[in-house]
């Protein structure tokens, strides 16, 4: 089985949240509070232990391609995007997990084993996208599994299956990347020059994302980091610095007890 992934084409997302609902239902993800946020039509807020798909709504006073809003000179566009775990090629959550609970599946996805996780929470600040969280009720980490159980059965993930416009497309990652390039050309040609791909490049800071996006504005507008880098890329240097500091501590303490100090007491 080759590596599979999501291509989320936000240019055709209609913000219906069917993906959020399908994900909650299929994975029995607990309810995590429903508060009025005033953030356009978004009361889901962000990804976390109990939110594995999150539809962002952004209202902007900018034109969308050649579109006429029909309200005088006012410009208006609505950006909607369904965010999800990126299933990074270089996954920080997986790297830092001290129990081996997080693992890479045969589909190239990253999954938490609920019965192995001990709730240390290290994966939470390690994720550069703010995806994974610690579930209050169980005390262990939880995030999108790309419907690992469905994949094993030859089914596509619940969110992609339910997406009424095919904004969420599931499939072979290489094929999705090609499709995304074609689609980007099409959207730009149609007049939306601000369109760009996010996470499709295997040369990026996380080695390419297993779930990547076609966005219509800068990533940070959607709450995505503009240039995420897997934290373990600097780890060899961190270990070297920590090692030198440990030896310095040993040497320093030893030196401070040497007889040369005796004279001065």
């Amino acid at each position, binding site marked *: 089985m080759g590596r599979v992934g999501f291509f989320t084409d936000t240019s055709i997302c209609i913000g219906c949240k069917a993906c959020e609902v399908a994900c909650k239902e299929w994975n029995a993800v607990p309810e995590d509070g429903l508060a009025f946020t005033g953030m356009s039509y978004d009361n889901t807020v962000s990804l976390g232990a109990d939110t594995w798909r999150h539809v962002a709504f952004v209202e902007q006073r900018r034109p969308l*391609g*050649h579109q006429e809003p029909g309200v005088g000179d006012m410009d208006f566009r609505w950006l909607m995007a369904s965010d999800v775990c990126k299933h990074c090629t270089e996954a920080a959550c997986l790297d830092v997990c001290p129990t081996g609970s997080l693992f890479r599946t045969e589909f190239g996805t990253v999954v938490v084993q609920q019965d192995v996780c001990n709730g240390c929470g290290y994966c939470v600040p390690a994720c550069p996208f703010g995806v994974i969280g610690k579930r209050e009720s169980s005390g262990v980490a939880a995030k999108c599994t790309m419907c690992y159980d469905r994949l094993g059965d030859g089914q*596509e993930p619940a969110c992609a299956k339910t997406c009424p416009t095919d904004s969420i497309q599931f499939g072979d990652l290489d094929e999705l990347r090609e499709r995304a390039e074609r689609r980007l050309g099409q959207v730009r040609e149609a007049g939306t020059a601000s369109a760009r791909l996010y996470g499709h490049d295997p040369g990026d800071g996380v080695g390419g994302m297993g779930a990547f996006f076609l966005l219509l504005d800068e990533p940070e507008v959607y709450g995505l980091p503009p240039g995420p880098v897997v934290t373990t890329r600097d780890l060899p240097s961190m270990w070297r610095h920590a090692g030198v500091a440990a030896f310095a501590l040993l040497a320093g303490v030893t030196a401070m*007890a040497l007889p040369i100090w005796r004279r001065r007491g």
Partner: protein
Amino acid sequence: MTSQTDVRLDGAAELRTEREATPGSAGDRRERPEAGPEKVYDSYYGRPVLNEPTWQEHDIAGYLFLGGLAGASSTLAAVAELTGRPRLARVGRVAALCALGGSFYSLIHDLGRPERFINMLRVFKVTSPMSVGTWILTAYGPQAVCAGAADLSGRLPRLGRAATVGAGLAGPAVATYTAALICDTAVPAWHEGFREMPFLFAGSAAAAAGGLGMLAAPLSEAGPARRVAMLGAAVECVAATRMERRLGPLAEPLKRSRLLRAGEALSLAGALAGVTVGRRSRIAAVAAGAALLAGSACTRFGIFRAGMESANDPKYTVQWQRRRLS
């Protein structure tokens, strides 16, 4: 993929016309004057990009302090033992024993599933400082316990001596791996400070252990403790200053932190008092030692809070990455 789903891997996009919809292509927009500079969006409704660490401050910042105190105290105890300062050695061993107990309580208390602490021992992963740290503690803990227990009970002096030396050798690793642990995250102020953090932690640990030695050991034997405290406080302050300079705008949460300023002031004051009046007056030595311990605790809590602050403000994530990209 053999399935009954409608996943299409054949690229036949015409199967679903919605995929080909081109928003913004309809309508014939008139040419209009540029509407001034575009607003710069830093984030999604000001929400953080990162998820806040779930670590409880009193547990994890407390552990950063206690782990450092335990590790450096063991090293001080070993050195005191080998240079014929039995009472300073005893202080170090008992301090390490108590701090280690507190450390284990904090670490296990912070787990979402404390009964699964043992799961940490399933694997050894060099990519996970927490896994490496678990094994460092596994090597260090029994020796520190053995050294402390042998001292308190007065039994098995040879084993106690060997354990004292062993714990003393492992101690520095206990004191500094925690720097790699917090730096190996996406938290901007922690991650970007990874070059100085281990030295800051080593210095802070040495200052705390030296302070405790001064506080509890007799003046005649506390010489190494006073000097270790002085050296530690100096290293801590230099590392903190360098880190704040190097981080530029990312250092804001560190510079704003009153805890960090208090930590530096207490450490330096305690260390200076220790090597001056603390050499002659027992009361001054106790006060200086207490200041050093408080200073080290303030520093660890200050670092912890500054990291939390940098994770919770999207500008530290977004602007830093933008600067790197440009």
